[in-house]
């Protein structure tokens, strides 16, 4: 009798041990989902707020595309926008939501998806992996434009880059890589993505092969590697080279250029900023004056307010949202500039003319030509500035032009005080949020 009880007891213990493994598999909360399937992880990438939307605003606020009046300045709710606008050396981030946090939040989504694909051995995930790699690279490139100086091949080994977080594990300490390592990461990820991605995607919120190649062209252009900028630009246009004919747009629309139009390679937008809002950010008269009256951009990009100040309405969003879309018009300009830098003036002007004839009133555009490399570059860079307004690119362009000796000095006058940003100033690398520096012990951008 005693033995039977003993055996039963042993059996019970055995069962309870077997039961244990089930118990451990149980989720602590039934609402917790583990994204183990392809669909789940694609859904993570498709949640646009955490991927392609909420792009950085710091560069756009700091660049010379826009200005605000003293009265506008006096209406700014957030101190950090005032400080960014006047190029203060530090305390230029909101303490709750800022570009740094937004970049690394989006990077973390990509890292999570890449980890899941590998960890759960998800089959058929080439496309998804390509999306995550391409997007992560695009975000690192975006963050480098805000928080790092221009890429300079001679000093990139020692210049401060970004902490390269490639794993969703938040216990890994953050350390700043060199600028060379940062750009290498971007390039390698984009190149790998290009081999995994289909030429086009079913939706423009997903990076395609054309997107990855387009970003490669942009990255190499920023680095001053014009041979590669040209090569990848041409490959991008080989997949997709559509341009909007501005003659088909209606300049009297409040926002004439529609969202996800035929030029867009990746749909992405800036986070809302009061300073950059449609009624506050103003375009300098001198820039507006560079548009010919037959140039349709003059009426499609701009509107005048009651005080006859110039406001921008040419967002690739069909609305007030400021876009940072990668689009074919930028690639045309990358290719044209690269040709010019490589001293192929004829081809440079040819591709620029292809773009501009879609921007002018039908029959009015006289193709431009240049007699020298300098003249071609001069024309192309002016047209680049006129075409790519409010796309978050001017800040990067200012950095690289100054790196190459353009000597562009920026100036703002607010309430009688003049603020100046000399060429190649260290403030071209915007201060990393102070709490991040304090928490991680990483070096702040020098001042």
């Amino acid at each position, binding site marked *: 009798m005693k033995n039977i009880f003993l055996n039963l007891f042993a059996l019970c213990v055995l069962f309870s041990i077997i039961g244990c493994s089930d118990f451990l598999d149980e989720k602590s909360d039934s609402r917790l989902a583990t994204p183990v399937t392809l669909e789940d992880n694609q859904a993570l990438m498709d949640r646009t707020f955490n991927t392609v939307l909420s792009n950085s605003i710091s560069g756009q606020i700091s660049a010379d595309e826009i200005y605000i009046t003293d009265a506008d300045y006096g*209406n700014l*709710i957030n*101190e950090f926008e005032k400080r960014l606008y006047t190029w203060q050396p530090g305390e230029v981030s909101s303490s709750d939501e800022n570009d740094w946090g937004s970049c690394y939040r989006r990077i973390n989504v990509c890292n999570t998806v890449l980890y899941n694909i590998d960890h759960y051995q998800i089959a058929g995930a080439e496309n998804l992996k390509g999306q995550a790699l391409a997007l992560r690279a695009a975000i690192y490139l975006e963050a480098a434009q805000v928080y790092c100086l221009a890429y300079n091949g001679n000093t990139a080994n020692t210049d401060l880059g970004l902490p390269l977080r490639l794993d969703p594990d938040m*216990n890994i300490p953050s350390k700043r890589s060199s600028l060379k390592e940062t750009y290498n990461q971007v390039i390698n990820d984009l190149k790998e993505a290009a081999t995994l991605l289909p030429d086009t995607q079913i939706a423009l919120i997903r990076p395609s092969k054309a997107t990855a190649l387009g970003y490669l062209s942009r990255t190499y252009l920023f680095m001053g590697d014009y041979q590669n900028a040209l090569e990848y630009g041409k490959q991008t246009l080989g997949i997709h080279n559509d341009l909007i004919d501005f003659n088909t747009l209606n300049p009297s629309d409040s926002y004439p250029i529609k969202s996800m139009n035929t030029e867009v390679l990746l749909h992405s937008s800036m986070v809302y900023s009061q300073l950059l809002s449609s009624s506050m950010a103003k375009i300098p008269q001198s820039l507006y004056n560079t548009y010919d009256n037959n140039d349709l951009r003059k009426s499609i990009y701009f509107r005048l307010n009651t005080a006859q100040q110039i406001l921008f309405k040419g967002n690739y969003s069909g609305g007030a949202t400021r876009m940072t879309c990668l689009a074919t018009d930028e690639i045309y300009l990358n290719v044209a500039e690269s040709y010019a830098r490589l001293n192929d003036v004829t081809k440079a002007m040819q591709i620029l003319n292809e773009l501009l004839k879609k921007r002018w009133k039908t029959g009015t555009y006289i193709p431009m030509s240049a007699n020298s490399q300098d003249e071609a570059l001069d024309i192309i860079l002016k047209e680049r500035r006129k075409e790519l307004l409010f796309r978050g690119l001017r800040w990067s362009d200012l950095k690289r032009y100054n790196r190459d000796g353009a000597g562009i000095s920026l100036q703002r006058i607010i309430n009688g005080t003049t603020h100046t940003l000399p060429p190649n100033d260290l403030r071209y690398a915007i201060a990393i949020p*102070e709490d991040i520096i*304090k928490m991680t012990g990483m070096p702040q951008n020098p001042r």
Partner: protein
Amino acid sequence: MLWNVAGMKGHGLDIELKTRNIDKAIKWNSIINFSIYNDKVTNYYLPTTFANNFVVNSGSIAPISGIVGLPVYGVFAYKWAGLDPKTGDPQGYLNGEVSKDYTKILNSAKGIEDLEYFGSAIPTKYGSFINTVAYRQFSLDVGITYKFGYWFRRSSINYTDLISSRDGHSDYAKRWQNPGDELWTNVPSNPYTTNSARDAFYNGSSVLVERGDHIRLQYLTLNYSFRKENLANLPIQNLQLFASANNLGILWKANKAGIDPDYNWGTYSLKPVTTYSIGLRTQF
């Protein structure tokens, strides 16, 4: 995360006393509840220690201070150096010097060194005092509650909110307008422009911190119980007529600003209204 980020220790004492103060034709019974509560941070591993991390603007619960040896929820404020007699700008201290560099004061990396510490943000002594006085068929219940030993931050004018969302405050009437006003007011002048750092400094400054101590009259209830013999013809056990009033307000408070510290969380929090009720209570 794989580790705890902090450690704390709390201790307290609850006392309940029931007394019969008078036990004759008039009966007076009391129940006294008295609690003491103290806690303190014993470990804290998060290194963020900017001044503004310890100060949250008016109308919010105090943030966890994370200073070892101090209460978990403590009230800190920017040190106050008065209003600038020329402009009515609020002034604080930066590295021991009078300063108007609000962004630097808010982001001072010295943490609590540049701040004034008041004490716990939650009551450390509290309880209730409930009395019942009975005479013949009448009885009167008086409920009193009290909270002592804590601090709170009151709200005041925030000019950025005023400009951006027309969210005002009655302190606007007391603002500095002319030189000399700084002698009787601490409310900064209207800058006619946004300066969120200036507003954050003033709203987190020591002049807006008040003692929370107060005594509250929670309720009064008057009962009349009918005699059992009068109910003989009715199918009921007992019958009471009562009149009561709830949320009667504060009997005494330490702050001179006229603010009920229990209903100071958030700009829009309202005191509960006083309710009156009369009724019949019976058991079958």
